[in-house]
């Protein structure tokens, strides 16, 4: 054997080690080269039989080959991973169905409500809920909505049949019961039961006798929020709602406040976000305006404070309200509000 043979063995080793794809194959290769009767010990065993002057050079080459083999095997071992821990198998078909216990899903409206409330909770708000059957007082009068006023038209309301118990006194108008037409009555409840500072968000179901179509439902969800303390300003309302819009719709969202009228706030605003479909350029979703109305808001009216027994000279506050379905429809691109209440699993599984 000569140095030429050593080169040949080295080349062969390179080819063979590339072909190895299991630890078993690598072990066979190790025995073939480095075993007691392996190729390399055969080489070193030949050294005594060589002429004196060749021994040193040949020995070095054989040794280099041995080191090379060791390092290649080690490298291969690493590339095969924790080779020793993996059970060898055959016949796996990774295309077969997975075996798993699948999770259910929260309704998309729940997901949106949770997401929005979480934003406000991070800002220091607490989440409160209120009853769905309300008094006319909490739903209207306490919120500075006069009993007979055109502003009531916007809040068309389901009333409950008065009790027919003859012993009962005929209920006065304020005691009449109704299904809340907005989540704002929780303002009255919260403020009557607690003193400022107050920062609350109220998610919940609301009801209005609207004929059902793609954009109307007689039952839907709102999130109401309000904050009352000394020194709360309109500018704070803007800051809080901008933080909300950025968290829910993304950092690039623009927001604008337009003067509007709500009986329970003064000054009042309608709040638009830049259209999330066309980014404000104008499209069919935003009616070519580039803006989408998402919120009503304002500074809580002093008359509301009067109703709950707060001193309007001492405290100020803001309130806002939004329709959850509308936000979900915008965010997910849903075009029919009825889908939320049909509960088709093919719809629900998309969220």
């Amino acid at each position, binding site marked *: 054997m000569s140095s030429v043979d050593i080169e040949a063995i080295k080349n062969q080793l390179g080819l063979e080690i590339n072909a190895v794809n299991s630890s078993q194959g690598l072990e066979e290769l190790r025995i073939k080269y480095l075993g007691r009767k392996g190729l390399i010990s055969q080489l070193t065993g030949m050294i005594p039989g060589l002429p004196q002057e060749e021994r040193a050079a040949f020995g070095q080459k054989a040794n280099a080959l041995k080191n090379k083999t060791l390092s290649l095997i080690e490298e291969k071992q690493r590339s095969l991973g924790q080779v020793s821990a993996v059970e060898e198998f055959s016949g796996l078909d990774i295309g077969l169905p997975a075996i798993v216990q699948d999770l259910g*899903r929260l309704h998309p409206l729940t997901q949106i409500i949770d997401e929005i409330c979480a934003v406000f909770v991070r800002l220091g708000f607490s989440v409160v809920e209120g009853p769905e059957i309300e008094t006319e007082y909490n739903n209207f009068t306490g919120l500075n909505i006069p009993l007979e006023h055109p502003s009531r038209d916007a809040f068309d309301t*389901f009333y*409950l049949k008065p009790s027919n118990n003859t012993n009962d006194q005929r209920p006065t108008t304020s005691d009449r019961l109704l299904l809340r037409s907005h989540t704002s009555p929780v303002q009255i409840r919260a403020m009557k039961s607690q003193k400022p500072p107050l920062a609350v968000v109220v998610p919940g179901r609301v009801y209005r006798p609207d004929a059902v179509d793609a954009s109307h439902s007689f039952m839907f969800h709102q999130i109401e929020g309000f904050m009352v303390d000394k020194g709360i300003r309109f*500018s704070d309302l803007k*800051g809080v709602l901008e933080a909300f819009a950025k968290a829910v719709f993304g950092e690039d969202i623009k927001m*604008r406040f337009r003067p509007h009228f709500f009986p329970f706030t003064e000054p009042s605003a309608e709040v638009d976000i830049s259209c999330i479909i066309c980014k404000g350029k104008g499209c069919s979703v935003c009616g070519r305006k580039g803006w989408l109305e998402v919120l009503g808001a304002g*500074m809580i009216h002093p008359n509301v404070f009067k109703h709950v027994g707060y001193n309007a000279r001492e405290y100020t506050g803001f309130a806002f309200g939004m329709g959850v379905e509308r936000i979900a429809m915008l965010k997910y691109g849903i075009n029919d509000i009825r889908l939320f209440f049909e509960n*088709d699993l093919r719809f629900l599984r998309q969220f």
Partner: protein
Amino acid sequence: MKVTYNWLKDFVEITLSPQELADKLTMAGLEVTGLDNHGGDPVFEIEITSNRPDWLSVAGIAREIAAITKSKLRAYSVERIAYRKKLSAIRYPLSAKTIKISIEDRKDCPLYTANLIQGTKVKQAPDWMRQRLESVGCRSINNIVDITNYILFSLGEPLHAFDLDKIVRRSPVAGRQLDIIIRRAKKGEELVTIDGEKRTLSEDILVIAADEITGRQADRRQGTGKPIAIAGIIGGKDTEVDENTRNVLLEAAIFNPLLTRRARQALGVQTESSYRFERGVDPGMVQVASESASELILEHASAECFAFFSSGTAAIKKRQILLDAESAQKNLGITIGPTQIKSILTRLGFTVQVKEKRKMQVVVPSFRIDVAQEVDLIEELARIRGYENIPPTLPKTCLKAADHKKDLLAFTKDILVGLGLQEVITYSLVDRESLRGLCADRAPEVLNPLSKDQEVLRTTLAPGLLTCVSRNLNQQELYVAIFETAKRFVLTDKNVPGEELMLGIALCGARPRFVADGLIKDKMSILHLKGITEVLFERLGISDHLLQIGPAGAVTVKIKGEDIGAIFEAKKDILERWDIKNKEVFILEISLEKVFASARTEKKFKPLPLYPAITRDISLVIKEDLLAGDILTAVRLNAPSLLAEVKIADFYKGRQIPPGYKGLTVSCAYRSAERTLTEEEIAPLHASICGILQDRFGAKIR
């Protein structure tokens, strides 16, 4: 409300393009929802909020534009009108003595005016006027009616033109007096209105009545006359202006907003006139509007002259409000001083007098019925200065502890989702029929449902769940596992409606599951609902719970002995109501309020056992009607002290088990706290347990 660009320009100088103007209006609270072109004149569709009736006219919007753009309002001239009035007073054959206006109650009608116009020729209104009216969606009728509408849109004061000769019925003769009476209708009184409808009136409706009285009759007690119009809403057919009208009685008045609203609702007729009276018309505009219209009638209907009569007063006490610049700054979070405040408010028609330091006395003009207190003025400042110019800030946060109940609800939903259930949201209002057989509680009824599907509030979540199951089975779903957390509503014994937060679950079909050997179909059953309840209760820290088979076959769910709900399989005839056939539906409904009241989510560590347990299984066969729960209880009660745990490790029926019997594997774990137990120690204990099972239950141990 619609308004055109050129019409506005009659009242105010505008240098902005229509689109720029639309943007400015929107940002000032007059939201422009549409901008079209009608015959070369841009038409703005503007949403007017209910608090601003002063914007329901071209003049009102023009005033706003002048304030926003700091441009000049064009003076609206009345001098010419005054001159004509003098002239006409002389020439008109009906002298001032011949018409008498009586207002029954000044609260219903604070001001009523009538302009008598002589010698009209009814024809088409001039083209420019018809075009403008059509631009804002008002149909052209004839010159007289069009002029009243033109003034209504221009100045916001509704007018009504009567054919005077149809009221008086004969040509005016000296010595006759026309009585115009503004009074409540008598019950059952009738009037055919301009739209041809015969309307039956009531005492809640204000009418204009007319009575013609001869000289001698005038001495007698005043009559009540015949209705000729429903005040502020719609005129009578009998007295309407037609092509032969030669003399006109032109009405301009102020009617009570509330009364108008109620009458409009009762009669179900809404007009441009009622829309404005309901919201409030400026008394200061009544005479101007009437005279402006008369002026136009003189010009475009060739009338000869007119005479003005009135009763009541246009004068109202103007509100005065003290405004502190400090309050404005504090409320808005901006810097604003008295000079800027005065400039803004003056442009809007307020009169401002600066008092000591930063305080101002503000007089509210008659057309701003919405401004009652300081904060209303602050809104005006913010609005005209621009909401966009208020910088966003963040308030100091008020930290409050989270609501415990809400946390539990979210936690519960997460557990259910983790168990593979899909959340649904269904309607709280249902058809009464859907509750039949599912809940015996009385449901609160809705007074004004739109349809039968909304007639009651649901007393149970089951109908909503069944609707979902049915719908999804129809979509070829083979497996439906859903839950809802929502309120149920009940009428209590005292007829007071109450609400309770519930959890409802419905399971139907078989859950397809892959195991190593392939697909198995996990057929839903009551035991699946048992499993869900147990996991839920365990995670909520509720240990003292029990499922008890009730007399009707339903399983009662109890916590600490109290009923909190039930698990049941829906009867076939109930399922048929939802078109569910050949399927079993399992339903759970429990009160989350009661569950949460018992929830203990705080954790306490128990030391781990020091010594290993020895487990012995007993495979036994018992009669089918014996209950596994009774066996476990018996074993527990008679257990030797070393029995740490006993449970059913398996259950089976089938070929190896004789008919009428079932197989159970009872698994017993023995453990000592002091030492490692030995086989020898366990053997007698285990034998005694086997003995109990044999003796008490006749179990055959295999």
